[in-house]
């Protein structure tokens, strides 16, 4: 099942800060606060929350909320 924005939003707040509001079309490029350090934070939050782990390729591939949701969907199914 594809995780929803409302499920992902708290994890973004935790990792990126209170201003990190996301929509389905949010991308890393369009969100300066989503830098590499915060990306690690986010990966950690996601791994802890969904009890999954991402490999190197996946971590690099996550460049938007949409790709993130797709990758999670595959993992969770």
């Amino acid at each position: 099942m594809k995780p929803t924005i409302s499920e992902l939003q708290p994890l973004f707040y935790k990792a990126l800060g209170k201003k990190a509001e996301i929509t389905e079309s949010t991308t890393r490029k369009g969100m300066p606060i989503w830098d590499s350090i915060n990306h690690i934070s986010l990966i950690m939050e996601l791994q802890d929350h969904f009890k999954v782990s991402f490999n190197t390729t996946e971590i690099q591939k996550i460049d938007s909320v949409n790709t993130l949701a797709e990758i999670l969907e595959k993992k969770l199914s």
Partner: protein
Amino acid sequence: MKIYAISDVTFDLIAKEIDSISDGAISCSFSYEEDIITKLLSIDPSELKEFDIIFIHSDQIFHSRPTEWQKQLCNALLRISAQLKDKKILVSNSLSNAFKTPPLKFSFGKAFDTASLYSSEIGLLLGQANLFIFDFQSILTSIGEKNFYNYATGHLYQMPYTSKAIKAMVETLANQFKWLVTEEKKVIVVDCDNTLWKGIIGEDGIKGIFCDKDAEGIMYYHFQEFLKVKKEEGFLLCICSKNNEKDVKEAFDVKNFVLKWEDFIIRKINWNDKAANIQEIATELNVGTDSFIFIDDNKFELDFVRNMLPKVTCIEFTDDYNNFISLNNRFEFKKKLVLKEDLEKTEQYIKQQQRSAEEQNYGNIDDFIKSLEIKMDIRLNDISDLERLSQMTGKTNQFNFNKEEYTSEMLEHFIDKGGKIYSLKVSDKFGDYGTVGLIMIKEGNRKELILENYLMSCRALGKKIEDGFLNYVVEDLMKNKLYISSVKFVKTVKNIPAEKFYNKIKNETNYFRTTATIL
């Protein structure tokens, strides 16, 4: 409290967590260094004035350092502890673990620990009065490698830890930081019933209390053993118990406890309140209450003492062995070793270290660089490497004269138009760095030569490679009677190392024919 961390893993998240759990009381500046030794040898003590503690962390499992590197790190640590005598230096003990022979070499299943080969180096380190060890290994062991490491983020972002690992590390670190900057404890005051032994002597009688190697009394037995060691380390032991003194004295006489009645320097066994008793002990010993640890099983007593004497460290004793272990590990029970003999020993060690540093030829940064046996391979217009060079123009931030990005097509075009692209590959005795440097030279409108850009990857910085590379290029141009007349330098948020270098060279006429101007 101000911490300066030098680490070969990305420290941002660790610093953030330290800030968050200490509510900002511990502020942590940090520098990420791929090559910690070079950084340590080039530290300028005056730049670290504002910091209380220097924390040095190298994750050996992730970086897999050769044994000779370990030895050099020991020497660099000794040197810095001598340089920064007024600072506390905290070093992760990931060091000693990596003295083990890398498994790649011995894959036939025989573990081979070579740590003893370097025991003298480790011994020297531990002899330094201002150098302390952060027990990274025990945290790793308690969490387990699988839950501790995330090699994917390590590979991509030099951040090899899970959030669980960071939390555990930071908790211990924050405690140890606090311990390092506070006066150490001198007096341990303990309760008797359900603390020194199991049971209540006034109700259960002598036969009803336990402190022995049977299951019922074993933890209390171990606690007494623990206190005995603390006494040998120099702590003063006292009793503070609501009991009849006669009963307690009888217990010590009849039972063969680890601790004897005389091991306690002062005994307050009466029905007065415990805060008053502890205050009396403090007055009798002429020691401030901030030097006191008070251990009791009774929450009410602990709260009462906490309220009346807020400087006393109050610790609850429970009948749970896990709690007992964490009590054991508390920093309040650790001495910092400042006995006179220890100090003398330290002086001897430092002298010995200075001698051996001279012998070993890396007592200073120049000698150290020499010992690295750096080899530079410089090529002009090497088309085959354009892909990597283009990547460098995007990724290099610190040593980058103007942060202009080029695709490999743009670089090819640059050469076609008569520009010169010098690329640099570096290796030293520890291994290959790959392509790390790029200098671009082009002709301006009036046929003058412009240093269009100069990049150096941060793993090569600090070893005078940046001087050597530019020297070579300048000399190569001079062979054809060519001189650089201007340099395109643009300040960015991150290119401070490049700016420093630019300021150093811009007026050197052996580099440039005329004083360089910023375009």
